[in-house]
């Protein structure tokens, strides 16, 4: 009598969780923009045996954005999942994997990320500021002012904008714009940049030094700008992540 087929894998089985963790590390390792994502839940898993010790696995994963930018060297386990009130961003991923002799590998992945709906946030937290579009004029003005302010005061390298990560605008009790953006060190000092900013280029890959800035601009009742930038120091870049070169948009991204 042929052996009974193995019981279907449960979504919380250790084998499923191990596969999901490999998939999440792959997704973060191949993402070029935005923030690292953490596993929130395994929606479904399907195993298609290919032969002895050879399975194809299809996973449906539910991820949540963390506060770590994708270029941050912080290990994922130390990255805080952005809270619901901070206007969480969810990632839905379909991942095809192979398990051969116990070794897991990702064959393909397709993800779609989207911010939680404003209605959901305001229902629970009417005062919470909401995510703004990254090409919002106010957002672009604040990022530009913040980077200029930082570069005018730093004695280190002149920093260039890589991408805006997220931005929120609130109008009560004060008109405030909060932005987060990724920056890269250039081959100029801030002083040299004053003379000829056009000559300031991002450092080449083997010397690259990225960082992350947060800026808070209070517009009313009186204008006040706070900027904080942290450079990560040179990281040995993963071979498949090209330099960041464009602003990303929060209204959902598809990555494959």
């Amino acid at each position, binding site marked *: 009598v042929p052996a009974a087929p193995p019981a279907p*894998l*449960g*979504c919380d089985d250790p084998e499923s*969780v191990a596969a999901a963790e490999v998939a999440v590390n792959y997704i973060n390792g191949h993402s070029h923009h935005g923030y690292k994502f*953490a596993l*929130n*839940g*395994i*929606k479904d898993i399907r195993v298609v045996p290919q032969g002895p010790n050879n399975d194809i696995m299809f996973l449906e994963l539910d991820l*949540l954005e963390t506060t770590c930018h994708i270029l941050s060297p912080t290990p994922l386990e130390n990255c805080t999942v952005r809270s619901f009130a901070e206007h969480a961003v969810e990632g839905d991923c379909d991942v095809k994997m192979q398990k051969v002799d116990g070794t897991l590998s990702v064959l393909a992945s397709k993800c779609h990320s989207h911010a939680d709906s404003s209605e959901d946030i305001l229902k629970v937290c009417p005062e919470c500021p909401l995510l703004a579009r990254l090409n919002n004029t106010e957002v672009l003005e604040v990022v530009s002012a913040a980077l200029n302010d930082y570069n005018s005061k730093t004695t280190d390298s002149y920093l260039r904008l890589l991408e805006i990560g997220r931005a929120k605008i609130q109008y009560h009790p004060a008109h405030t714009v909060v932005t987060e953006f990724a920056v890269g060190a250039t081959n100029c000092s801030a002083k040299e940049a004053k003379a000829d900013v056009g000559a300031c280029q991002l450092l080449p890959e083997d010397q690259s030094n990225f960082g992350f800035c947060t800026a808070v601009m209070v517009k009313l009742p009186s204008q006040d700008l706070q900027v904080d930038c942290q450079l990560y120091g040179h990281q040995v870049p993963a071979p498949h992540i090209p330099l960041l070169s464009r602003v990303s948009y929060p209204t959902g991204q598809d990555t494959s």
Partner: protein
Amino acid sequence: SVTKRPVAEAAQHDKVPRPVGFVPPPPPCPGKIRHFDI
């Protein structure tokens, strides 16, 4: 003579009696939510 029992009756008879306190296993998927659901 062979008579066909109505399904409900058959199902009633065929239902395996479950031990008292039997808790069906949780469905295999979806799995647990680690942070919050949005």
